[in-house]
């Protein structure tokens, strides 16, 4: 048994990165580590080809998880899950009478700076890598399912066939060898961009400026800010509408931010129960 250091950033304290945000690899105990790597998914150039979904499945040998038609749009994948690590959302919107637009967006695990799944994992199966990403060690996971309920984005899930929790690894095996993750490699429009997170953040800011100048007032960045509720994400997005239109939470906050307060209430409640039990025995013996 060991007291966890590599397995999380308890209550978000530790060294800062260049942008002033928490450096998750350093605060997880990596003294010397490569730059934090991530995804910038620019949904304004996504064409909904789903090459990312396919490339991810192929490279990671992710099993088939239902070949059904949802009947709601061209999205027959539905959502991220244990066997879907990239998911392309399709949103058809009527903008003006007689005019419509398609929004398409490839969703993925956010590799949060303050990662709920990693915080709550009771076995240490979920861990922070030297790249600042979050991965499940399949040989450790006992399938308790706590991470599933802790993720504010509904990313990670338990796979029925093997009982373990699974999600995007940001192609840990590829990036360790200097390769680009399969989804980004396959993306034909560079909607999915992979690289050091600080570079991606700069690139995204410039892209947002361009779009605003071009009159795309709805364009906004999502999860790029180290001050947001998950400390900024390793995988962030440029969206053309409110996050909830894409099935993303508008203001997610990692659940463990409230945990110190929860423990205080638990301790008080436990003490109250002990006191109530003790006092129940007092009084006149009948």
């Amino acid at each position, binding site marked *: 048994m060991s007291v966890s250091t590599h397995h999380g950033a308890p209550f978000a304290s530790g060294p800062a990165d260049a942008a002033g945000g928490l450096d998750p690899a350093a605060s997880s105990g990596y003294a010397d580590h490569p730059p934090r790597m991530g995804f910038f998914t620019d949904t304004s150039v996504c064409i909904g080809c789903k090459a990312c979904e396919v490339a991810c499945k192929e490279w990671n040998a992710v099993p088939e998880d239902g070949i059904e038609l949802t009947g709601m749009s061209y999205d027959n994948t539905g959502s991220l899950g244990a066997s879907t690590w990239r998911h392309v959302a399709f949103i058809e919107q009527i903008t003006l009478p007689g005019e419509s637009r398609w929004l398409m967006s490839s969703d993925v695990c956010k590799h949060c700076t303050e990662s709920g799944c990693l915080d*709550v994992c*009771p076995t240490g199966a979920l861990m922070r890598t030297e790249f600042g990403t979050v991965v499940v060690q399949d040989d450790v996971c006992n399938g308790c399912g706590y991470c599933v*309920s802790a993720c504010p984005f509904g990313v990670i899930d338990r796979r029925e066939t093997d009982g373990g929790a699974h999600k995007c690894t940001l192609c840990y095996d590829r990036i360790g060898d200097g390769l680009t993750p399969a989804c980004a490699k396959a993306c034909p429009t560079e909607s999915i961009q992979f690289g050091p997170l600080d570079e991606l953040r700069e690139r995204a800011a410039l892209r947002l400026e361009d779009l605003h100048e071009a009159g795309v007032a709805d364009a906004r960045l999502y999860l790029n800010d180290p001050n947001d509720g998950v400390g900024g994400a390793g995988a962030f997005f440029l969206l053309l509408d409110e996050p909830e239109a894409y099935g993303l939470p508008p203001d997610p906050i990692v659940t463990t931010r*409230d945990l110190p307060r929860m423990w205080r209430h638990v*301790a008080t409640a*436990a003490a109250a129960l002990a006191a109530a039990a003790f006092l129940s025995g007092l009084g006149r013996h009948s």
Partner: protein
Amino acid sequence: MTATRARRGRGEQVVVPPAEVRSYYGLPIVKETVWGVPDVPGYLFLGGLAGASSALAASADLAGYPVLARTAKTTAVTAIGLSLVALVKDLGRPKRFLNMLRVFKPTSPMSVGTWIVSAYTPAAGVAAASALTGLQPAIGRAATIAAAITGPGVAAYTAALLSDTAVPAWHEAHRELPYLFVSSAATAAGGLALALVPPREAAPARNLALTGAGAELIAKGLLLRRLGPLAEPYQHGRSGRLMEVAEILTAGGLTAAALGGRNRLVAAAAGTALVASSAFTRFGIFFAGRESARDPRYTVAPQRERLRRDSQPDSQDQSLS
């Protein structure tokens, strides 16, 4: 959501979010829990019953109620034994349950809970064995005290277990849930002992059941008031019905135990009602959380409301730039 209003702590007014929130084809945002029924809500109930019974047993020992102490110790070890079976069975990979003991993580209520239960279970076992056989009374006394100290932890930590998630109706209940859980545990432990022991030894059990049931009704009221629109899953649908039945049983059991608890038959009926109420409460809370995860409104509306509050003149919206 309903067009009602609710008050939050520190006097801030919560304006209820609009009935219409946007979503992606109405699909859930957070995942539904994979925790099984009846295993996990059953564990919430049994763990509470066990923990509070151990606390009651120590008190009974101290005050000189041997039958009550023995009954409570037997209850505790039986309940925690059944709990462990339910917990291991609920894992996706049950053979790896010992992986829980690889690490100690204060950020994971499940990890902390595993260690608390690991300390508690042997103590509860030894306390019951000594009480039932009469062997090693000194060790039995020490074990009884150890179980009484760790037992309330077993009953209370499960509140953090549920609250430390992205499940809206569980997370937002994190202030009141620990009090509701220990009250419910006291109701169950006091109620069961009240139903099982003869009236001459039932006084401490009745006291604990009455305190628990009263506190439970108060905690539930506070929780629903604080949750505002998120109280909906606790009040409607299957979870709402379970909570309603629980409340009727609690109030009925409370009244019967207070008025006629010295009569053996009334005590048995009241105690049984209180035990059942505790179980109904736990299942109700479990299902309310599940319901709140299924509907994206419960995820989106409170977050939108927070953003709206935060973007009032003196502070800036931090999440979208």
